[in-house]
């Protein structure tokens, strides 16, 4: 009965998990600042980018970093920094859109499976287990191969690969919540199962799903870069980080910065999201036990 150890009624509203995450862990700050920088660069790319990311200039191909081109130029004479900033838009768009789709679909399926139980549970989780048994990249590759390479299909592909973990994360606590008095009371009061799942179970899972989402956002961005790297991403000449790494590979000996800078961009973004996600998880985990 840990609950009884809490001072009843005198305790004010508890500090939000978010505030707790930042107070207790400096690395969470680093993650948040790095991510904010990447997001800002992406959103403000049209204002901040020194050059047009698609403008070719044959005279300045494969130039090393200089005052004019801070991160150098690629094989077509395009400014690497500008392409990196515009590439961030694709990476973040695909990442956020696919994770939002995955968390919505996977979360809903997990709650349905956990709450309904029985055959529905076995069916849903069976499909999820099949999805989980494929390596993420391979499954994404298959989906893109079937649907064709485009921005939308890339989002669909990554969402499909990431749905299963969210279904699992949502199902486990649903099994516990299903037995709680307030869910039973809802049933005794004649609430529709959809109301019970949406109003009484989902809000108690949001924290866990949010933590998972921040961690899987990193994976989504990595997967997008990987798919673009093997040529199954957004078509050139649109700038994407994975595409830039691939193009840079062709000149890795003459102009190593071409592959290095987009790789660093992926690294920094993934690191930022992982730091942020870890911090959130640490803040939220013990809390959920107590309620």
């Amino acid at each position, binding site marked *: 009965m840990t609950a009884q150890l809490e001072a009843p009624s005198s305790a004010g509203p508890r500090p939000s998990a978010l505030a707790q995450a930042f107070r207790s862990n400096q690395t969470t700050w680093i993650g948040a600042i790095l991510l904010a920088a990447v997001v800002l660069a992406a959103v403000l790319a049209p204002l901040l980018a020194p050059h047009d990311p698609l403008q070719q200039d044959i005279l300045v191909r494969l130039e090393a970093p200089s005052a004019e081109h801070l991160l150098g130029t690629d094989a077509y004479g395009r400014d690497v920094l500008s392409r990196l900033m515009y590439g961030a838009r694709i990476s973040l768009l695909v990442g956020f859109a696919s994770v939002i789709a995955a968390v919505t679909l996977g979360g809903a399926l997990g709650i349905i499976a956990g709450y309904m139980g029985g055959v529905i549970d076995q069916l849903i989780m069976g499909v999820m287990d099949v999805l989980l048994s494929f390596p993420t990249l391979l499954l994404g590759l298959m989906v893109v191969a079937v649907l064709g390479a485009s921005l939308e299909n890339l989002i669909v592909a990554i969402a499909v690969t990431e749905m299963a973990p969210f279904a699992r994360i949502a199902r486990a606590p649903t099994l516990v919540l299903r037995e709680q*008095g307030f869910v039973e009371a809802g049933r005794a009061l004649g*609430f529709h199962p959809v109301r019970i799942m949406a109003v009484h179970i989902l809000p108690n899972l949001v924290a866990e799903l949010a933590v998972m989402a921040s961690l899987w956002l990193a994976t989504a961005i990595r997967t997008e870069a990987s798919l673009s790297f093997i040529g199954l991403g957004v078509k050139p000449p649109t700038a994407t980080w994975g595409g830039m790494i691939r193009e840079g590979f062709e000149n890795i000996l003459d102009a190593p910065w071409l592959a290095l800078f987009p790789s660093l961009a992926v690294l920094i973004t993934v690191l930022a999201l992982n730091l942020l996600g870890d911090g959130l998880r640490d803040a939220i985990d013990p809390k959920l036990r107590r309620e």
Partner: protein
Amino acid sequence: MSAPTVQDAGGHDGLEVLNLRKEYRSTGLFGRTRRTVRAVDGVDFHVPPGGSLGLVGESGCGKSTAARCILRLAEADSGSIRYEGLDVRAARGPALRMLRRRVQMVFQDPYSTLNPKRTIGQTLEEPLHVHGIASGRAAREAARALLGEVGLGTDAMERLPSEFSGGQRQRIGIARALILGPSLLIADEPVSALDVSVQAQILRLLDELRERRGLSFLFVSHDLGVVRHICDAVAVMYLGGIVERGPVREVFDAPLHPYTKILRAASPVPDPAARVTMMRIEGEIPSAAAPPPGCAFHARCPAAFARCSQERPLLREVVPGRAVACHLFP
């Protein structure tokens, strides 16, 4: 066991449960039944309008399962449950909605009985919205009035469950159970998780509400003192079946069934004149998955004889108003 006694004959108002059975099966691979647990095995009881029945027994005896079947939180396998003329087990659609308004439940654990993310106002108003009884201002007024009735201030409306103590949360749980205006309240160990001082307050509240609203009570508990305080009649359950049933004072003052005697002796009496006789109960409650043949209690019974291990005793009326399932009372 299921032979209806005079007390069980049909035509009653209130809650009437006849020959209720509920099994839980655990299935192995490919849906083969591996184990069958008879949680409730042929139970009869009756709660008259305005009356209160205590269902007592050790944990695992099926008392909570029986209560859950009446609320349709679990589906009974067979038997009949009627409440105010309504066939509970067959109810669906409008009939089931009506049942939800008439029969409500108070839960054991005050810490999980309220959704931690919803304010007290939201918790109390939601049933009114769902059943289309009231909305907006009217729902808020109804919730406020009920909070007053259970002894809480209206400032509770905007607060979250984490701001309340166990006893206060149990009051809110009672208010939620009453918001639809039920006539039967089923309480599953409503005070066993509370401090003793708080227990008394909650029991007094339930007593008051019963009087004021003319409620019927089905009170599931392992605490004989609590049942004695709040119930007029009691049914003692052992391993899925009722072993003794009758008016609460008579049953506890002069128990007939050996199991009731042992239960009685195991619960302290606030009477210094009472002779202390420590009766020992041997062994554990047998598994409901492998019930012994004959009387379910014979392995632990101090008065068992040969017939007890062969033939299952039926619940029959031995004194007017009192029924016992024991071969000592043929």
